[in-house]
């Protein structure tokens, strides 16, 4: 910690009242507000998952009724998608790091940033209210006509909550795009930006272009719930599939909202752990933009068997294969970066490697699903469930945790216990695979998703999955322990405990409120300009 007499206080020490936190304009404090909130929602969604795995441990539906199970998986999906995964990296790590990484004092619109957090909390309140009032049973996908005409649960309350949190997303994206365009410090040209910043740019594009479509689609559901008539009603000549087109136009890019930031984090973790430039920086940048753009062209692969035309199915299938290419480029480049490298295996690196392997598996199984002929058999089975959990949990959550570990010293000024962190990371990797790999097998054997009971033949695979979930849950709880411990007893961190490149490491840990006490110097050699060994 900087003990100089005239050093400004760290952002954590700059005001200790509740008011100074709830009315802050500081992007770093807002990041922490988000981190606390999303951790709460993660555990809420996790409890729902635990209940599901408890039910599925036995073939009989003996823990809860089918209706309650429907509400449980709906709650799990809504909370995890909109209140955890989508905001996780952008609103915590993105908020904290973006201005630091580009050498700025804050984001372009700090008050809008705070307002975005309040919108998130308001949306969360609606969702919790829905839970307390009895829940919603439509699945997080709100398919019509069930959601609009037949469900007797709290659809309106939930869609209002998601509508509100969607605007939190949109405004965050707006803030980031303007910040990156207009507030880069002297010398920070576009192709000297760290890949994490590029991933924030890509994710912001997606958030801004996709989320408004979700907002209006939810408004249409709300209108139909309120007035009893809607455009998705077949009796009027409407088409329920129109809803699915609109919903997936947002929800497919939404998964890229979850994955692009993860990829940005992983690029930072890998370069710092192997102390090398990233292999193929420009191609990594083009891949981020490529994923962001092409990700908008594939949504129909969620509707192959829903009644979509075969020709549209073919087009969406081909495009779904195309979108895998930039992701593959990134996996190759991370691997090439590591080739013959001197790798430090701290917890961040373990998470990064876990991401690369699990994302790859999840991504490859996505190609299975993109093939229409295979999808006919695999859709709505546990194969799909396993596929997206590999990417979202094995991928995005691990990248998020890796990032939290890597930047923990910068955010809190403390070093966490490396031994416990490595243990938790490895336990998480093992627990994750035990939970979700059997689900690929169950799905391939034909076990359908969203059922609370299933034929006895799937028993063993489900027992393994539920056992894995116990390990996984334990692994998620461990960081709470050692992180909290580090806040009191952890060794204090200097500006750059990892010896990493990047403007965020040129200021104190934790940084002062306005980030830099003197203008940071941008390395002309670009990001990750590590000296050769």
């Amino acid at each position, binding site marked *: 910690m900087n003990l100089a007499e005239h050093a400004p206080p760290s952002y954590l020490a700059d005001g200790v009242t509740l008011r100074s936190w709830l009315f802050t304009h500081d992007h770093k404090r807002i990041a922490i507000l988000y981190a606390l909130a999303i951790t709460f929602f993660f555990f809420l969604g996790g409890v729902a998952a635990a209940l599901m795995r408890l039910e599925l441990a036995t073939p009989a539906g003996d823990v809860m009724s089918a209706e309650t199970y429907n509400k449980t998986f709906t709650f799990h999906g809504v909370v995890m998608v909109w209140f955890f995964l989508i905001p996780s990296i952008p609103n915590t790590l993105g908020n904290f790091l973006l201005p630091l990484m580009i050498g700025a004092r804050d984001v372009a619109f700090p008050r809008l940033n705070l307002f975005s957090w309040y919108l998130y909390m308001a949306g969360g309140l609606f969702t919790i209210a829905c839970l307390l009032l009895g829940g919603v049973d439509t699945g997080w996908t709100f398919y019509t006509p069930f959601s609009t005409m037949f469900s007797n649960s709290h659809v309106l309350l939930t869609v209002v909550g998601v509508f509100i949190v969607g605007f939190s997303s949109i405004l965050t994206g*707006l803030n980031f795009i303007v910040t990156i365009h207009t507030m880069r410090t002297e010398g920070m040209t576009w192709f000297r930006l760290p890949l994490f910043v590029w991933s924030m740019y890509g994710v912001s594009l997606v958030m801004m272009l996709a989320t408004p479509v979700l907002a209006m689609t939810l408004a249409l559901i709300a209108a139909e719930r309120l007035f009893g008539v809607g*455009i998705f009603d077949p009796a009027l000549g409407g088409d329920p599939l129109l809803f699915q087109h609109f919903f997936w136009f947002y929800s497919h890019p939404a998964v890229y909202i979850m994955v692009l930031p993860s990829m940005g984090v992983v690029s930072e973790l890998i370069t710092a752990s192997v102390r090398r430039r990233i292999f193929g920086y420009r191609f990594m940048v083009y891949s981020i933009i490529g994923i962001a753009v092409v990700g908008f062209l594939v949504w129909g692969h969620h509707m192959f068997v829903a009644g979509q035309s075969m020709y549209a199915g073919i087009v969406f299938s081909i495009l779904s294969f195309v979108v895998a290419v930039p992701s593959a480029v990134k996996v190759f480049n991370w691997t090439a970066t590591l080739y013959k490298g001197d790798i430090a295996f701290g917890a961040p690196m373990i998470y990064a490697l876990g991401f690369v392997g699990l994302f790859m598996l999840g991504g490859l199984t996505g190609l299975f699903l993109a093939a229409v002929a295979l999808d006919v058999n695999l859709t709505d089975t546990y194969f799909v469930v396993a596929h997206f959990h590999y990417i979202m949990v094995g991928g995005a959550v691990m990248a998020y945790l890796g990032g939290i570990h890597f930047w923990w010293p910068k955010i809190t000024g403390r070093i966490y216990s490396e031994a416990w962190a490595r243990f938790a990371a490895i336990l998480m990797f093992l627990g994750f695979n035990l939970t979700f790999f059997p689900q690929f097998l169950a799905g391939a054997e034909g076990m359908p998703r969203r059922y609370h009971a299933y034929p006895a033949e799937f028993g063993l695979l489900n027992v393994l999955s539920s056992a894995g979930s116990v390990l996984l849950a334990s692994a998620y709880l461990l960081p709470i322990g050692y992180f909290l411990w580090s806040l009191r007893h952890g060794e204090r961190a200097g500006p750059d405990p990892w010896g990493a490149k990047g403007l965020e490491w040129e200021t104190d840990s934790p940084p002062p409120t306005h980030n830099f006490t003197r203008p940071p110097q941008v390395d002309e050699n670009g990001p990750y300009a590590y000296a050769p060994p």
Partner: protein
Amino acid sequence: MTAESTRVAEQFDDAAQQREAATLGMWAFLATEILFFGVLFAAYTVCRLLWPDAFASGSRHTDLPLGTVETAVLLTSSFTVALALRDVQLGGRRVAAWLFVATATLGVVFLAIHGVEYHADYEAAVIPGLRYEEVGPLAPAKQLFFILYYVTTLFHGLHVTIGVVLLLVMAWRVRAGAFSPDDHSALENTALYWHLVDIVWIFVFPLYYLVGRA
């Protein structure tokens, strides 16, 4: 360039950066509005393709003279707000304030005409979910037309209302001397928002008022 008249927020390096951020931010927001309303236009496209006769029939129910007047009112309001901005850029204050008020007034006129239309629709019983008494083979699909008509015009009307409030606030602030030729981002952004509201209506008009009029 009078530096003292431009308040630069602490996150920005200078007034130019602040202006650039405000403009880009506003345009980024407008892009989201295009996609927000765009869903309704996409739904319209699909439904009209499926039920062209029902849509033509529905469109004939709309009031063409009133719709034309509404369109003229909004187009004129874009003109007045642009002139208001021009006046501020040339150092003006009083004329600009009155032009903002005039723009807001035109917005209110637009909403009033909508009120007249909605009332007539209620009398004619063509409001699905509230009072819909159309009969005949086209009647079910015509509801799709009217549902989209109301959702679109109500969301648009909400945006007009917000715009009117913003314009009146800006008129007040202009009169109080809060802006200068070098520092009036809030006015530019209000004008941009208003022009977007106009553009949405520019597309609503032919799609909802001019179908099947031959």
